């Protein structure tokens, strides 16, 4: 698998109380466990099974993902920003790996 690199888009600034959109993407095959290779062997499942978003250390949004989510899973959602701080995003792989990305936001 190509090197896994999460990508996140968060506005750099927001007015206090604004609800901002956050868009995330991570390159991952999301191998469903339902496919077979050329010799007929089942390709083992390997997916991102959980995504979580934190602001200043507090989790405020999460997703349980199943094999029906497309490869290179895209997730977008919203956050109400009341103070400046740092977002942390985490993707959990079936193989135990955790991919993390952070983005900071300032008050306009």
């Amino acid at each position, binding site marked *: 698998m190509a090197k896994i690199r999460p990508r996140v888009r968060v506005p750099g600034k927001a007015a206090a109380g604004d*609800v901002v959109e956050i868009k995330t993407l991570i390159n991952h095959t*999301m*191998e*469903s466990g*339902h*496919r*077979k*290779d*050329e010799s007929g062997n*089942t*390709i083992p499942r390997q997916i991102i099974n959980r995504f979580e978003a934190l*602001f200043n250390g*507090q*989790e*405020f*949004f*999460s*997703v*349980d*993902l*199943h*094999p*029906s*989510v*497309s*490869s290179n*899973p*895209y*997730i*977008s*959602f*919203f*956050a*109400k920003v009341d103070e400046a701080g740092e977002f942390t995003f985490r993707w959990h792989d079936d193989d135990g790996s955790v991919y993390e990305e952070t983005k900071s936001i300032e008050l306009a």
Partner: protein
Amino acid sequence: MLEMQDSGGTSRRRVLFSLGGAAAVATGLTVVPGLGARLARASETEVTEVIKEMVGEMPAEGAISIDLPEIAENGNTVPLSVEIDAPMTADSYVQDIMVLADGNPSPRVAQFRFTPMNGKASASTRMRLVQTQNVVVVARMSDGQAMMASKQVKVTIGGCGG
């Protein structure tokens, strides 16, 4: 080209809810070709079981906005957005939105968990749809109240996990 596996897609749940576990497995494996493909799919009954597991009983239809194409040319990546127009305050907010697909090998697609800090109960992703089927969305509020909505998507080329 990689082929979708038919019989292996049978979920544990399906077996559990069939009459007698071992007998059901045996039947599943010896079924006539053609029927196999159907058996590997989730079903409406299975979707009902997952919903009951989550919220206790079948919820009433509610105001959930589901944005999905009517016809998906490529079932490998079908864009989905869900939104509920509800206040997101500490006293009352949308807690979960669960997305199910009744024609995929397993009905669960994704479960979004919200908090008041989301400001808005809205999320998007992209999903696989193996065939034409219903996408069912169940939402649960912080007070335990639940509602559901569904939308059919016609799939031209099925997404089989590739």
